[in-house]
């Protein structure tokens, strides 16, 4: 059984980390941040989950979709480059303005879509590493002393 404080911390920190990662993702166009850092931040939330609750639950819920996440991220990133062809050059930045009823005026461009793809790739790759490493770590601990059983 992991320590109580770790589980408590997990409850508070996981949403904070995920929200922070989204914040970093969307400010990344002009300020420090972007898909890579945001992806690592989100993976840190998953790592916290592994530490506090063990990797089994995460492996069941997120594990099967990690490869798909890598694929989706790569596809999104390439497609954001293809959109640039509308303006004549591969990967040229293209911005669309949307007037949404609730959110108001929204300007969305291909750089942020590219970053979204990077985010997906990074979070999926990093989480699958972490899950793999936690399995290796588990195998090295004697059965009686498993941290999460």
């Amino acid at each position, binding site marked *: 059984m992991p320590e109580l404080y770790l589980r408590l911390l997990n409850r508070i920190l996981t949403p904070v980390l995920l929200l922070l990662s989204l914040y970093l993702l969307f400010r990344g166009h002009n300020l420090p941040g972007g898909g890579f850092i945001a992806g690592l931040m989100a993976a840190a939330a998953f790592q916290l989950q592994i530490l506090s609750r063990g990797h089994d639950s995460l492996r069941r819920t997120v594990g*099967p979709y990690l*490869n*798909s996440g890598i*694929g*989706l991220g*790569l*596809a999104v990133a390439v497609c954001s480059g293809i959109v640039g062809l509308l303006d004549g*050059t591969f*990967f040229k*930045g293209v911005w669309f303005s949307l007037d949404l009823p609730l959110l108001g005026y929204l300007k969305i461009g291909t750089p942020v879509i590219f970053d979204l793809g990077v985010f997906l790739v990074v979070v999926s790759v990093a989480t699958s590493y972490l899950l793999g490493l936690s399995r290796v770590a588990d195998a090295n601990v004697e059965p009686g002393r498993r941290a999460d059983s």
Partner: protein
Amino acid sequence: MAVSANLLAVPVAAPLLTAALILLFARWGGRTLIRHQIALTALALCINLAAAALLFRAAAGQGQRFVLQLGAWSAPFGITVYGDGLSATLLLMTALVALAVYPFAVATIDYHRARMGFHPLYLFLLMGVNGAFLAGDLFNLYVFFEVLLMASFVLLTVGAQPAQTNSGIRYVVLNLLASTVFLVAAGIAYGTLGTLNFAQIAERLPLASPAVRTVFAGLLLVGFGSKAAIFPLFFWLPASYHTPPPAVTALFGGLLTKVGVYTLFRSFTLFFPELLQDWQPVLLTIASATMLVGALGALAQPGIRRVLSFHIISHVGFMLMGLAVALSGNNLAFGFGLGAAIIYLCHHMIIKTALIMAGGAVELHMGSDRLASIGGLVSRQPFLAFLFFTAAISLAGVPPFSGFVSKLSLLQITLDTRHWVVSGVSVFASLLTMMNMMRLWRESFWGDYSRPSRVPSRILQSSVRQRLMLTPVAVLVLLSLALGIWGEPAFRLSMQVAQQALDRQAYIEAVSPSAQTSTLPAGLFTVPAETVSTILSKEN
């Protein structure tokens, strides 16, 4: 039809997007899923071939240069993707090899490896190789080197046999060392010249001190040279090529070292053509040693695939020899050596892939590729024997195949420049090649039929599989024959490609990196050329 520079994105984007789609849906479905993956991969390979062929026609045939500034950010700031005849030739050959090996891979790769992601990895490797041929700056070249290194490392180890893991680790460590050397070279370029863009390096390097040029060139020679498997730096190749499934060896044998050869061609012709003269003795010595060691080492190998993969090293020596005499020539046209090296490169990619596939078919049939224990296959598999024989004599340089044209032209230029020793060595290495091939042929096809494995042959079980394996070999052998018969037009084309690659001024103008830099405040983004030369002259 006018070809847009955006076409340069296709050889990278098409494999990447397809691999991404395969990964995206890899979770759902069983055996039918693999079938969809195969169809998608084949489609991507065909698109890649079509794009490469279009580029080749425009760049090599009509002498155009394509420059794609990604995102329309101009040269030293954005990412430059550059395609000329040399890149297009290699793209076309790569596309052909990748498409030819694929049916063989489909026939021979087992379900387990396919589930582990063989098909997307195949595409990632193709993407890395294509990207390296198209990169217009050192950093992206490095990135694509890493992409192809990682993809090839996983392809080498997927299946996780102990021998595979062992060779995979040696492969990846030695290649990472080479990448590090290359990265140091890139750091030196950035630190002294203030740029990574090929065109801008070519523009500023003449202003740099000779010390910088020597160190930069030396590091690039070591880094690219070990990717190409030149003489003292080839150890990763024989340590690893014989362990993965034959389809993977065929793909590696056709593609990987050629990326190193291409980067050697590109960097020496664009950055420091004068060193081709100054360093000629060194380059020729390395080339001779590579030719000899590759051919002699292959003689000592016990298995078909080991012989064939060791022998790749010898061919790299021939290409390096062509590069070393690229700018010399007394009676022959300018760039004759490079033209000969390019046609040799094409010949090698075609026929080496065919041979490794044929050797792999022998191995799968016999259940082993140890020459001492197999034999007599000619009575059971006459068509395979025929294909192997024709490919082998083409490799050895017998007319009317492509080996003859390419070896003859290389010999012509070395004799013309009066490098008697090197031309002697190359003839001797060709004889050793002939010996190697005859040894393979005698041990595996002649004599009494002996098959060491008790497990029934996988080839014989299905005629579809057999056709999938042997058709690409036959197509490649026919291509080699065509390249030999139409040797003169092919050689003329490769001379055009070589002369285009040797025209540095046109490369610089096509990318035109300094047009943008001159309007910027001095010292803000890059060091202007005058500053570089003053700094460097102070250092002296």
